[in-house]
């Protein structure tokens, strides 16, 4: 079937092919070609999706994040603890999520995806920036106001087992959130609601009196989803919702998430390191590198034409279960590891590993995330030059990164 997709590559892809053909590497070209294949299908969906690239959705913004920062202090000390430095887990991110869309967040391990998600929900205290949720500035809320505001923003966790209290039955897990927000009114109605919830995530009513360890991974994740749904949220932050699941089960949960979105009009922020997963469910994708967003675009646009060198490398690194694709794939291999977020490189965070790194700007100035057309935003000084093929790839000496903290 993949063969067919490739052969029916439509016109919209040609742009990409053209641009990349200009680049020095053939690798990028091939990727571009494949992406183009996907783009057609993407286009088909685009019509039904709430988040077209057009400006129509702009006024219907649900969440606005402005310059959010989460710096974890590194405590050292002999007598009294003192702060010896910071882990710049999230370091100044702007982003908007529109009502009803799915925003995907990808990046390598440790780049701050989880922290961003939690900072957004104020599950960790951001050290800077603002989060505006549906018109209210969540960052200033305190105490009870903050607590009640949580009803509208929920979270799904990566590890379905550890995110469920092993000592609580499914019933009390589900009721807890409702009770916290005064949603459990009367035994009957609560019960009905519980059954409805379970049904909507595809679990039998008998599950109510069981405990989390009695379920399989996929079922546990469903419980986690039901818990989030119980308080009727608008936004759900899903932190790696499927990466702990078996491949065969992962699809069930992804489908479920999509169904629920359609039925309930939910807005998702989906965090994942698996690009394919993110691409599959997201309308828009943000790529993170070392605490900042390096690129943001609609799912299709990102795939069709990755602009940031890091995104390019990332996309080219994903293995595809298709021998034909794999056989002709040319990868952009990055050297070295992700630098430590406690000592992020100066300038562009990616310059230490960037095959397009230039002698000026890259190691001195931190690039802004800027729109280079069609809502495609990228944080690279030379994005246009790279696209235009004016800058070529070169070898990078790997730098060894010592993991700390």
């Amino acid at each position, binding site marked *: 079937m*993949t*063969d067919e*997709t*490739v052969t029916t590559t439509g016109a919209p892809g040609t742009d990409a092919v053209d641009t990349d053909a200009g680049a020095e590497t053939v690798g990028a070209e091939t990727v571009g070609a*494949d992406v183009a294949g*996907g783009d057609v*299908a*993407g286009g*088909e*969906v685009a019509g*039904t*999706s709430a988040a077209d690239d057009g400006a129509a959705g702009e006024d219907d913004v649900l969440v606005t994040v402005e310059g959010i920062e989460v710096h974890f202090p590194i405590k050292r000390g002999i007598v009294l603890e003192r702060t010896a430095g910071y882990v710049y887990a999230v370091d100044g991110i702007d982003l908007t999520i529109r009502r009803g869309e799915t925003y995907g967040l990808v990046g*390598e391990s440790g780049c701050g995806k989880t922290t961003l998600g939690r900072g957004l929900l104020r599950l960790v205290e951001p050290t800077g920036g603002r989060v505006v949720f549906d018109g209210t500035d969540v960052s200033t809320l305190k105490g009870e106001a903050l607590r009640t505001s949580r009803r509208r923003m929920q979270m799904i966790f990566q590890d379905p087992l550890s995110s469920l209290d092993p000592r609580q039955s499914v019933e009390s897990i589900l009721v807890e959130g409702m009770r916290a927000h005064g949603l459990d009114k009367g035994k009957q109605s609560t019960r009905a609601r519980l059954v409805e919830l379970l049904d909507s995530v*595809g679990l039998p009513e008998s599950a109510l009196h069981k405990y989390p360890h009695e379920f*399989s*991974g996929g*079922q546990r994740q469903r419980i986690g989803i039901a818990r989030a749904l119980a308080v009727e949220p608008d936004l759900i932050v899903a932190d790696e919702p499927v990466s702990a699941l*078996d*491949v*065969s*089960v*992962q*699809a*069930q949960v*992804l*489908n479920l998430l*999509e169904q629920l979105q359609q039925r309930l009009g939910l807005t998702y922020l989906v965090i994942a*390191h*698996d690009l*394919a*997963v993110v*691409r*599959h*469910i997201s309308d828009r994708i943000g790529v993170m590198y070392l605490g900042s967003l390096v690129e943001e675009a609609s799912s*299709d646009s990102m795939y069709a034409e990755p602009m940031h060198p890091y995104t390019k*490398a*990332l*996309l080219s*690194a*994903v*293995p*595809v*279960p*298709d*021998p034909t*694709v*794999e056989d002709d*794939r040319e*990868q952009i*291999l*990055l*050297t070295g*590891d*992700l630098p430590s977020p406690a000592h992020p490189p100066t300038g562009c965070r990616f310059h230490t590993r960037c095959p397009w790194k230039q002698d000026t700007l890259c190691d001195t100035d931190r690039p802004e995330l800027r729109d280079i057309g069609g809502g495609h935003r990228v944080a690279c000084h030379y994005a246009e030059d790279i696209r235009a093929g004016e800058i070529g790839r070169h070898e990078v000496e*790997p*730098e*060894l*990164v*010592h*993991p700390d903290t």
Partner: protein
Amino acid sequence: MALLDVRDLGVVFKRKGTRPFTAVDGVSFSVEPGQTVGLVGESGSGKSVTSLALMGLLPKRGAEISGSVTFEDTELLTLSDKQLRDRRGRDLGMVFQDPLSSLNPVITIGLQITEVLERHRGMSRKEARVEAAELLDRVGLPDPQRRLDEYPHQHSGGMRQRVLIAIALACRPKLLIADEPTTALDVTIQAQILSLLSDLVSETDTALIMITHDLGIVAGLCDNVNVMYGGRIVERAARHDLFERSRHPYTHGLLQSIPRLNAPRGEPLTPIRGSVSDNIEWEQGCAFAPRCPNATDVCWSEPPELKADDGRMLRCHNPVALGDAVTEGAL
């Protein structure tokens, strides 16, 4: 003549107070020199146990191994522990899944490499150090001389995996078994490691058994792929055959349920229903039957055999018809 020939390999775990558990059952496959063979399957399907059985690394007590494993005319399963140790690390190398825990945290990386060289290649400590530095260089570790005196915790996951690969390849083994060598790593690092592995293997003509649950990796790397389910091989084919025309409903289901970077967006995935825990035992029928969209009564009562079918091996009563898509909703 195959380099490695596995015939009817079976592993049963027996522990007091628990029922015997068959982790691997009648697994047969062979590996030619220079060939890359894939072993894929979900978690718990018996991939690691198979590889450990080949290496003779399963616990002596509690694991019963049956069948035969012939490596260059030697039956590995009946070798004494000492004989086996002579071959491991020399003829057979292995790279494990978790680079974080697979290196001894309290001794230097140098020693962990040189100890193999000393053992199998009879080098002196000095020679071994020189060689070790060279090996590190080959696996792409910058400044290898300095690394020798460093400890594993001073390195990132990707770097450690390189060290492990260096160790496995130190004696130029004829066969390398890589058990999910990249699962713990990020995509960009994974790509580095995979390309390193395939380069090294092709340079030295080493045969490689690649164990993974990621069909994408297999698709890019292996000549031959074995798909495992519940401890048995359910389908084996050359990789193009397998990916383009999967016959087993399980393989088929897997391929259908994986989101793909290059697939049209918005199309719902087609998951396999249920989960691995829904298996029945192979003795009772087809282990996959409870999750199989094609299952019929015979699947619930009669264990299917692994049979040659159209240039591949298949263990299924009701294989997916060619060109026929399996369609059924989730759960």
